[in-house]
């Protein structure tokens, strides 16, 4: 097995890039929507054969065992080439959860099924009354013989209609003194009578989000991960790497490239007003990358990132939105048109980019919540 961490960053980047360029299906590059598994299964098969499904997992569980520096490179290259992340909730969230907190039996049973995508996972965190205030969640899991009996509702569950399993935060002790206490992590099958999934249509006309209703749904007590009532701190521990990933420059860089292509095709660079606004967003992207490198260097030195990493997400998502808004301005009278607009022989889907940028300031902890975190943890206010 290759020890990826032993080769240089440059060589690793070259190897990852070469693999994506040679093997990633052209028609799946920069997909504007989240695919169902069936749509990308042929790519998953290649990735699985290469042993690259789980970059962050330790090699003993079938991962690549990448350290932070290599992991960032892997994701940078993935974004750069427009490689779809696939149905990666199992890889990104459930795997690390089980590896860190699960029993040997849970590792033996679930991890291989995640790698093969035999099980497709969705994340049951948010509820109608628990968005930014996630600890307010009410979906309950009550012990009933060898099972938990689950009742309640999850919402914004991405791709739940294409998932076989859900990992969820549930309330197991309604009488805990603080609402962060009394929350547990459980795994459950979606394929049972007590689970009902309804899709939510987004502004973009897509159905990637769902509501999931639990009405006396069951899951074996063996599917509790970690200690009962300790789910909140486990969920927080899982987010540490995600906090830099969610602030990485990729999305904004890709959008900027699209804006440039589109604006050249529409001769917008002849307009001094556009030039200034383009330079503004282009520098916002370039200068964000400088700050991102500073945090990435910290990771490479083996340091843990502090709460200040939140500023990356704030900056890059708001920049991404400005880029997509500028693209609509360049479109002029076509600014409301659905589907790709032709410039030369390239189609640029201006509205798709605009819609894709909107939720970035909402998900992963809304930018207002990020500002609360920075204010408290970094500025001491």
């Amino acid at each position, binding site marked *: 097995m290759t020890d990826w961490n032993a080769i240089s960053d440059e060589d690793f980047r070259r190897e990852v890039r070469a693999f994506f360029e040679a093997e990633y299906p052209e028609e799946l590059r920069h997909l504007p929507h989240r695919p169902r598994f069936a749509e990308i299964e042929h790519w998953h098969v290649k990735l699985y054969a290469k042993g690259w499904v789980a970059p962050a997992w330790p090699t003993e569980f079938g991962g690549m065992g990448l350290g932070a520096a290599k992991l960032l490179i892997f994701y940078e290259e993935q974004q750069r080439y427009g490689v779809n992340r696939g149905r990666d909730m199992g890889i990104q969230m459930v795997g690390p959860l089980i590896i860190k907190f699960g029993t040997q039996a849970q590792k033996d049973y679930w991890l291989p099924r995640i790698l093969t995508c035999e099980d497709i996972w969705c994340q049951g965190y948010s509820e109608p009354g628990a968005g930014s205030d996630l600890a307010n969640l009410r979906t309950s899991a009550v012990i009933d013989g060898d099972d938990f009996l689950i009742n309640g509702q999850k919402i914004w569950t991405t791709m739940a209609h294409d998932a076989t399993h859900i990992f969820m935060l549930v309330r197991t002790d309604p009488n805990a003194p603080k609402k962060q206490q009394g929350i547990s992590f459980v795994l459950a099958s979606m394929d049972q009578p007590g689970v009902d999934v309804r899709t939510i249509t987004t502004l973009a006309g897509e159905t990637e989000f769902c509501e999931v209703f639990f009405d006396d749904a069951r899951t074996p007590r063996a599917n509790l991960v970690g200690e009962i009532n300790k789910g909140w701190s486990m969920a927080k521990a899982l987010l540490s790497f995600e906090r830099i990933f969610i602030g990485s420059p990729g999305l904004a860089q890709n959008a900027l490239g699209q804006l440039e292509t589109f604006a050249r095709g529409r001769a917008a660079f002849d307009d001094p007003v556009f030039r200034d606004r383009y330079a503004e967003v282009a*520098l916002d992207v*370039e200068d964000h990358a*400088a*700050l991102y490198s500073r945090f990435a260097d910290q990771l490479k030195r083996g340091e843990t990132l502090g709460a*200040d990493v939140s*500023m990356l997400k704030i900056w890059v998502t708001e920049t991404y939105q400005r880029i997509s808004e500028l693209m609509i301005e360049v479109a002029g009278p076509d600014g409301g048109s659905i589907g790709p607009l032709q410039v030369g022989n390239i189609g640029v889907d201006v509205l798709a980019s605009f819609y894709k940028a909107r939720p970035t300031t909402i998900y992963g902890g809304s930018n207002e919540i990020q500002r609360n975190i*920075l204010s408290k943890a*970094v500025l001491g*206010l």
Partner: protein
Amino acid sequence: MTIVQDEDLRLLRDSVRTLLDRAGGLGRARRLRDGDEPWDAGIWKELAGAGVLAVAAPEEAGGLGMGLVAAGVVAEEVGHVIAPEPVVPTIGLAIGLLHRLCPQDATLEAAIAGDIMLAVAWQERSATGLSDVIECRFDGTTLTGSKDWVVGADGAGQMLVVSEGVHGPALVRVAADASGISTQARKQSDGSALWGLSFATTPAEVLAEGTQLTDALANAVADTTALAAAELVGLSGAALALTLDYIKTRKQFDKPIGSFQVIQHRAVDMNVMQEVAQAAVREALAAMDQAGSALERVRQASRAKARACTAAQKITREAIQLHGAVGYTDEFDVGLLLNRALVLSAWLGDAAFHRRRWLDAKETEVAVQ
């Protein structure tokens, strides 16, 4: 060019900070603004003695050869206490021109040692603003014409003047007390002056001529622009720190105003702006030290100045707002920072100018490839 170690930069930062803090920090800028002298000659000698003016010049020209990265550290510290001594114009323009054009000239050694102050006069004014052409004439022995936007002419012993000579562009040296010089000072918001200079058959001595001067000037101006950006980063960091202190202590409605979410989010935005600016300017300076082409140096300098101007203006203006009415008084130090930010932003091109130049440079690079 050698790679400077982080540890060396840290030591440099500590020594400049200690020196400037001991001299009086931000309070010193106010004292000098309200006094008769434009800056403190004693502090100038101390700075030179600490090697501050030597950091960027190459070793073969009598410098420390630590590059713009080190000069940027100095500039940030100067900006942090808005020291009125012309550190950046001296390192970037005066020493920057001399070490490129006449590294063996005794004036360079004297300038690095702080024994002589040099003012560089390179821009000219037309009816509508900045002139594209140099009309100041050097006939081989004397200089005639006008220059403008000169920094530090009041304390300078000599002036380096970019003129049109017999064989094309010429850099000439003029003694400050030479005959035929008339000066006009325009006071700026921070208490400093910008000078207009007129020469009428003023005795002058040529230092360099031709395209080497054009190249050296372009590089020295790019350096100075990027160092002005670093100075702004230090300045906006100080404005942010003052504001954070203030909103933690100022109470209204029986609470520190920093406990209100609207204030918190505005403070966070200032902080994010500051961190992005600092990272971008430091990256630009490092890239300039490694840059292969003059065009890339220009592009990086413009990137740095565009970002630093935007950040410093936003941060100092927000700082005034968050201080409330006292922020609008001369008594509070935060206003000194706003006034200095206005001057540093206007000097060598503001954010809009540099965004334009950055994009032009980027397109030229693409076209050349």
